[in-house]
Structure formats: C-alpha cells, structure tokens
C-alpha cells in the first residue's frame, strides 16, 4: 500500500530568513458582551472612522488590516468580529480556531460586561490554545473611557487582569480614538514574540479544499496515484 509522504517541513534556518523579510498573518479575535464597542473598535482601527450605529456586517468573517511593521516586515491582521449574531451564546470553535491573539472588551459604564470578561476568557482558554499548549495571548480593553459615568474601578481591572492571565489592559475609546492603535501595536508585539517560539507543523501540511488547483484525474481506472496530498 503506497503511503502518502507528507512534504518535509521547511528548513528552520531558511524559514527564519524568510520570515524576516516578508509578510506575517495574524488572526485576532475580538469578543465581549453585546454593545461594548467591538465593531466600533475594529472600524476605528481599520478605517479610522467612527459611527454610533453600526449594522452587523453581513457576509464577512473578518476585517483585514495591513500594517507595515518595519521596512521589510508587513503584517496582515485578520480582525474577527463576532458580528453580533452569535451574541446570545458562546462562539463556535471555528471562530476561535488558530487565533494568535485575542481582545476581550468590556464597557467601563457597564459593570455586567466587566464581570462577563472572565467568562469570555474561560471560553477562549477552553476552546483554543497556541501550538505549544499555551493560552492565546489575551488583552483586556476597557472601552468607552470617553464617557463620564463609570461603573468599574481601575484597581478592579488590574486585579482581574492579573488573576485571569491577561497579557495586559488599557482604557480605550473607539469614539475619540484613544489608545486604539497603541494597544493593537502592543498586541502585535506580543504575537510576534510568541510567534518566534512556534514550531513548524510537526504533522505535515493539512488539506485545504478548493484553494489551489485540484488534480483532475479520474479515479482508479485511468490514473496514476498522485504522490502528494498537498492540493
């Protein structure tokens, strides 16, 4: 029985060289209670715009932001919004899968949304982790800091952040564009740092369907077996 030989993992040295001069892709998921400002935050960061009344973006999984990190390093950020539709429940694993960074957002003017940040963190940690088994780096954002009536104190945020393994936190305002770009830069730095430790896939490549050309051979009767499973 012919075994399918998976392609050899790329040479580590070459890979490092390659990474140094090219583009990286990061999937970042943004979660938190309804109405805390997740979509506004993404719009502010990606388009530098703010509107009070976002309709759920229909038909799009994520917003793409391209960041020129340095002269020879471009970063493509996929910002996955829960799009409002899954708001009554925890997310599908499909949403969490392969996330390299996570933002959990709450609304400084809503104590309940702050309390739920822990629930969201637990849900993330139970459904995804980095290749080495470490939790996905998770940043806590206290949004709507432009508003006056606050229901959450800073020391509470600090404690929660420490006790539940967040990588850091800050106050933000998507409306006034406070700390939006800066906190994303912080998250990217952390993701770059973690990314350096990630091993290449030890199991060989997996198949993605419908991406590249498919060997259009027609079965056993008039074909030679293809020797690669990379389609």
């Amino acid at each position: 029985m012919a075994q399918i030989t998976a392609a050899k993992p790329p040479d580590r040295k070459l890979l490092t060289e390659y990474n140094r001069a090219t583009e990286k892709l990061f999937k970042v998921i943004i979660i938190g209670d309804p109405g805390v400002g997740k979509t506004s935050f993404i719009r502010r960061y990606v388009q530098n715009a703010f509107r009070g009344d976002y309709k759920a973006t229909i038909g799009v999984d994520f917003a793409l932001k391209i960041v020129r990190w340095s002269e020879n390093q471009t970063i493509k950020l996929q910002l996955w919004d829960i799009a409002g539709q899954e708001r009554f429940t925890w997310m599908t694993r499909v949403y969490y899968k392969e996330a390299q960074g996570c933002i959990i957002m709450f609304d400084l003017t809503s104590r309940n949304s702050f309390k739920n940040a822990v629930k969201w963190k637990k849900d993330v940690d139970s459904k995804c982790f980095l290749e080495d088994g470490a939790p996905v780096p998770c940043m806590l954002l206290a949004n709507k800091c432009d508003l006056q009536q606050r229901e959450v104190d800073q020391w509470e945020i600090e404690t929660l952040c420490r006790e539940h393994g967040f990588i850091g936190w800050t106050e933000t305002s998507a409306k006034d564009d406070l700390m939006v770009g800066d906190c994303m830069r912080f998250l990217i730095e952390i993701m770059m740092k973690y990314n350096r430790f990630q091993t290449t896939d030890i199991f060989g490549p997996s198949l993605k369907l419908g991406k590249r050309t498919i060997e259009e051979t027609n079965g056993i009767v008039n074909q030679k077996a293809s020797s690669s499973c990379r389609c």
Partner: protein
Amino acid sequence: MGEDIPSPCDLIVVGTGLIESIVASASSRIGKQVVHLDHRDFYGSSWATFSFNSLQNTLGLVDEFTEHTTQSQKEASDLNISLNSKAICNVIEKWFISDECKTENDDSQECEASRDKTSRITWTKSELLKNSRKFNFDITPKLLYSRGEMVEVLINSGICRYAEFKNVSGIYTFDGAEGCLLPVPCSRADVFNSKEITMVEKRLLMKVLAMCVDYENKSEEFKEYESGSFDNFLNAHKIQGKIRKYLVDSVAMANDSTNFKDAVKNVQKFVRSIGRYGNTPFLWTLYGSGELPQCFCRCSAVFGGIYCLKRNTENIIVGSDGQAIGIVSDNQNLMAKFILIEDCLNPLAKIKPGISRAILITDRSLTKNDQAAIITVPSANGKDPVRILELSASTMACPPGLYVVHLITRQVKTAVEDLREAINAVFCSSEEEALDKPNIIWSLHFNINEYDCPEGKLPPNVYSCPGPDLFIDFDDHVIKARNIFQSMYPGEDFLPKVPDPEDVVLEGPSEDIVQERPLEGIVETSPEDQESGETRQ
C-alpha cells in the same frame, strides 16, 4: 436578553446537528432571518466532538443529554418539543491503566527515556486527563468522499475555508480466517503492485471496477443484475477470495444483502474520489467531524443567523389552519414561517435501535498509520460489518504517541455486546502475539438512538431532521438538507459561494505605517503576575 431574539422570523431551527446547521446556513445565505437554538451548551448535538473532560462531563458526571421536565401550559393542539429522551445511552467507560506510573522501577527519568523511544509509552490516567484538550473525541466520526456531496458543498459554498482535512492513508479489511488486516489497493498502481493477489485476480478486479464505473452507459449489460443483490452480481462474475473482500467490504461498503444499484453507486463514488486529494478516496476532518456542523453555523451567523445555546424549547404552536406559527422557548413565544427540529425532539418520534459505538485510546497503530485509516471487520452471521477508524495524532484526535480508535456498527443489543467480537478479533491476542498489537488504554461504549418519524403527521411547515446514521460519509445528510431547503424555498440557490473576506475592502485606509514612538498607557501583566493563566505544557 431574550426580548432581542427577532420574532417573527423566517426560520427557527432547534438543534445544532448537521442537517439543522446546513439548512440554517443555506437559509441565512439567501437573506432569510434564521434563529438557531439548542438546549445543550455545545454545538453539534449528536454530531459533536469533545475534549476528554467535556466528553466525560457530557456523557457521565453531568448529563447534558438529560431529560428536561419543563412543562408549560399549552393548548391541546400544540406539539411538545421538549427533550423527552436521551439521544445517547448505555454509556460504559473503562480504564485499562492505573493512576500510577507503570515502569518497573519508579524512576521518573526512566519513564521519560522510554517515552523518547516512541516504542511503548507508559501513560497514566492523570497524564491523559492532563492532556484533555489534546483529545478530540467524535460522537459521530465520518469520512468525506473526495468527490462526494459534502466536499462539493464545502467547496461551492466557500465554507471549506473554516476546515482542514487529512487524506485517509490506508483502507483495510479484516481477514477473520487469518486473523490479519488486508490492505485494500486503491489506485491502479496499488492494484498492480499488490503482492496479495494474483495477476488474474488483478485483471478481474480492474475489469469489475471499470464495469461499475461505466454502469450508466452500459445499462443493457447489467439488466439481469439490477434487481438483485451485489453478491449475486459478483457470483456471476466469479469474483472470489480477497478481491471479493476488497470489493464488498471496502469499495462498495456493502454486506450480503446490499442491492446491486446501491453497491454500484458506492463503487463509483469510491473510484471517482481516488486521486483528487491523495491515494485513497477519503478525507478526515482535522479536529473531528464535529467541526463541520460548526462551520455551517459560523456561516449562518456571518450572514445574520441568531445563535442561542442553552435555550430550552417547549412547544410548537399550531394555528387553527394546521400550520405551525411558532414555538414556545423558555416561556417566550417565537414566531416563524418555518420550523426545523431534530428528530429526537419530534413529538411523534419513536426510539428505535440505532448505532453501537466504541471509542478506544490505544498506544500503537494497528496499521502503521500516521494519519487516518479505515478498517472493515466484515459481517458475520448476517450482522452488519463493524467499521473501525483509527486516528493518529496528526489528525488532532490525540497527543502524539497515542491513537484514537472509533468502532461503528448497527445496534442489535448494546454497544458492549455488539462490538465485543470485533474488538477481541482485532486487538486481543494470545500472549506471544501481544507484543506487536496495540494495548487498549481506555474505552468508552455507547449507543446512539435513531428515531422513527411518521411522515406527513407534522404541520406542513415543520421539518424533522434525522440524526447520525451508519453510513461512513455525510452525503445522505447533505442531500436531505438540500431537499428540506428546496422544499422551503423552491428555486433558490443552495449555498452559493460566499465572498472571500480578503476581497471585501472596507472603505478607508487599511495600510498603516507604525510610528516609532514608545507605547504608553498600557498596563502589561508580567509573567510572574499571571496567577491562573494556563501553564505551558
């Protein structure tokens, strides 16, 4: 939050199994407002995939499939859809290792050393449970034919982007007389390189395969077999011995009584699927089959579907004209034009014997397989065959060094009784042989119920979706989902391609040059401060 669920909506779906999820995504995709509910706290109903801990919680300690006693006041005409039976039963878990390290001298370094050699790894119960999240146990493990309905739907809709796959690397049939596994040759090259069969048999096998593939064009030649069994056809062509086993057990997925047409359809699918993604016709879903319903749910959510787990449903409200007008869910009326429920909630459903299942963890491969393998233990005494799927760590089913083995057959008695023979035949052996056979470390047996649902008794705008079946692939369910969709929305496109999110450009600048200035105002948690973050393994 309940008041935010839109009512009325176009479609309420109760249950997040495969058919329900496919219909939900197809309906959202054409702009229908879908509300998708499940009383469970996970996606997938009887199609779900679990980590070690969540499996134990779900099936054992905390029973998620448990009965609900919520009874609300209802009109006589209303149909009760609160869960009144368990979809999974006869659950028996067994450990075959102790909780202590089993090395001769209890030196932990010794233990590490034996692990490095990858030959025989000694595992303990606590070690396995510590790796809970690295296990992905399927309730309903299924393969995809590379040219089957599921693959086509995934590609055509673009939903394939949410999932990854591995090619199944080996297909085997169990030879009861010899007590060994026979590799089934798949490609033409396999057939001709096989040392198991003679040249005459090779030619005969290729001839029969070619005939089956060409069946539609030569229906005249087949007329005499059409109404009979596949067995009858093979007898007529003097197909005996190993090649008959290959054909019946693995290629046609048949048994003694399978009719000719069904068997030929399977042969065609098998042959056409070879070579598209690899040497065998089958794909396995990375992280488990339970990913697929979730892929469809995500697609539905992205197109506006409202998702709500842990939400009980009590009744279907039936109007005076016999049409359903909505449901009662957690004492709230939700109105909809169409209602889709899973069979186990169907008030008219009657439980019938379904599927006998076992999940094993073993310490060695039966097949030297480093991806996924399917083994058929053929039927004896008129019983259905037992299908065995062996998954290695590369399928994300378990940590490296271990294998997850799924056994599937038709339920006659209980899972333990129905699968005993096959497990004994394949795994247990006399002392002298035991060295190269896998050890079973842990086993779980259970039964999945099927339901008899009388047709035409529900209101015409209520659909009931069957749960898992015995087939090795998803295609029947994909076809059922498409039929339900087309009967609700005749003439509408079934899951047309979604735009690639990378192609959707939001207005405004999307490229940023990072400014070189220090970051201020972010409170960074130093690693020592992280008290309860999960530890790196």
